[in-house]
């Protein structure tokens, strides 16, 4: 099963990298970008076939390693 995980900064947390993207897009002439927020995308190929169990495991992975839950949110998509 494939697990696709998006990790993003929580609302309101300063995103210096997003700020740099926004600023650079502007200076390259891409007008009209009001805000840029960036995060990371992680894809795992896991042996588990039961969706509920897989979600439980991946959630634990996010809590322990993949996301810094103090400042980041995560979302998990599973695909057989």
């Amino acid at each position, binding site marked *: 099963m494939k697990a696709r995980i998006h990790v993003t900064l929580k609302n309101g947390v300063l995103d210096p990298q997003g700020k740099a993207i926004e*600023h650079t897009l502007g200076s390259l002439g891409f007008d009209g970008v009001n805000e840029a927020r960036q995060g990371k995308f992680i894809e795992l190929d896991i042996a588990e076939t039961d969706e509920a169990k897989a979600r439980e495991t991946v959630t634990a992975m996010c809590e322990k390693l993949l996301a810094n839950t*103090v400042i980041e949110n995560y979302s998990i998509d599973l695909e057989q």
Partner: protein
Amino acid sequence: MSEITPEIVAEHGINEEEYALVLEIMGREPNLLELGIFSVMWSEHCSYKSSKKWLKTLPTEGPQVIMGPGENAGVIDIGDGNAAIFKMESHNHPSFIEPYQGAATGVGGILRDVFTMGARPIANVNALRFGEPDHPKTRHLVSGVVAGVGGYGNCVGVPTVAGEVEFDPSYNGNILVNAMTVGLAKADRIFTAQASGVGNPVVYVGSKTGRDGIHGATMASAEFDDASDEKRPTVQVGDPFTEKLLIEACLELMQTDAIVAIQDMGAAGLTSSSFEMASSGDMGVELNLDQVPQREEGMTPYEMMLSESQERMLIILKPGKEDLARSIMEKWDLDFAVIGTLTDSKRMVLKFHGDTVGDLPIKPLAHHSPEYDRPWVSTPDSKDVLASDINEATDTTDALKTLISSANMSSRRWVWEQYDHMVMGDTIQRPGGDAGVVRVHGTNRALAVTSDCTPRYCKANPVRGGAQAVAETYRNITAVGATPLAITDNMNFGNPERPEIMGQFVGCIEGMRDACLALDYPVVSGNVSLYNETNGKGILPTPVIGGVGLLKDSTKTATVAFESEGESLVLIGSSIGHVGMSIYLDVIEGRREGNAPIVDLAAERKNGDFVRSQIEGGFVKSCHDLSDGGLAAAVADMAIASNMGAEVIKPAEVETPTTAWLFGEDQGRYLISIGDAESLLEAAEEAGVSAVVVGRTGGNDLTLPGGSTISVAELRTCNEAWMPNYMAG
């Protein structure tokens, strides 16, 4: 129906007595915004309400002092029309919650305290304390904090040249991250936070305001409990690249004649910066919060006034200088906004969407904050452990090996190699020696900086421990040949409402005071961090001292490395073999017992003056102060640093048992390696300083009395392995 319930008051950390004072000052019930402002202004962090009474007893004056405590940082004269500006500040609680960002914003905050006064930051120092290595959180915290300190300091381009890392179970739930910055300014171009001139514009520059760390200043004064993991407020995130722009922009603006007063927005952000500026100039302020640059939509006045967004400054400009300041800030890509004006009302008036949303008197809030004379009890005397009370080591070399491979004695190379300690090109002595040494750019002078504290001594005997922390910085600065000029202090303690904790605080201050007076070494800035407790268990009392000294001729300095083979090792200072509370007793015998060593301040000064004169005279090039692990540990450090062996020989007349003589932690001592020992001994005798030859350098091995021989290569491996192995575990 009142907006302010007793629950809301309590949530703001204001007790009943304090709330009565709030009502008296306001003459009416405050609204939520006003209550929030009281709460941050009267938090322990901003008001020093438990510590003020005692801090006042510290000596803060001397011919070298240009500005003492009370400003953003202390200022001392370093000659040639230059001044050094420095301070140390804690970021303990935020670093426990989010180690990378907590440590990073700690570094950012202390940098701003220094450049806000007109100084270019030239050196950073970090004193870090973590829980026991086996605690499940420790490795994660070490890794995050070290990366955060390095990440911010390296990106902003200021070298980290000195510091400490220590482990102890008492810090399991409360780590300490104490960051210090030293900056360089022209002595006649110092900027302060004193507002003046009715009608002058109040200007906001830097990053936009978001909902970062709201109530961080209040959080820093509250004890943790197990639930605090859940109610984590938004963590501040630092942006070192913006900080770099802010440094350059502010220093450029300072070259013009536009600034009346300037203050960084640190803890309690816009609130404390505006109140401090207005109160030190006895002025009033009217702020239009609609003008505050905002990162998020729908921010309330409460959030704007209490936000701790990083990389922001508040400036009072001279009239008509707005366009000049705006053009400089815009050139550096920073936000600029005129958000208010100075008034003569002596009140803070806050406007939002055309309404007055807050109206508070400034002086009573800033100056009449509660001040507590908290009850305290002296720490009872500990029964000392005598040199004759410990077992003789079966092999002193084996004991040394164990000692220097232990968590607290092992090399910190793994840590400081992650810090850029060479950026700016003026670093003369890197971390790993007694003090970091940085050249005063473009001159032959240099500053020596160090931080020290021995918390286990402070626990056993706060008065001796406080004196020892000051004396150890004095010694470290002296050991590189510099003259110690002044200190900053970062007082980290448990809950001051417990008399025994307050007693530790009072005792440490007394010891520090004695040492500062005896060594002509005043306190010019500092910070207090109380309530470092989890579930009622306090940290070891940890008054971290940051010392700054001056090398008038940077070529006349000493390092910890031996110069050449066949030199004599000369021990300066007398040894009785004090083993109480020593690292040896702790690591080898598993006993943390006894009293802290006596600090003979007269001897400390005499020995220091003597060693310094020998280095200044160019006679001594290799010198190390003795601290944890005593003579044996010092010889090992020097051998490792020079990749050269040595033999330690116990003089026949010494009656102290060998183990205590080698590992005892008597204070006021230095180890010197020198070719012409005769002249040094003569000079010492003339100066009335105890000096004795205790061995010679040479070969590839280290030999101790009562011990076998060990190669320097093996010593280094033992010493350097612990930290990387631990972090890899």
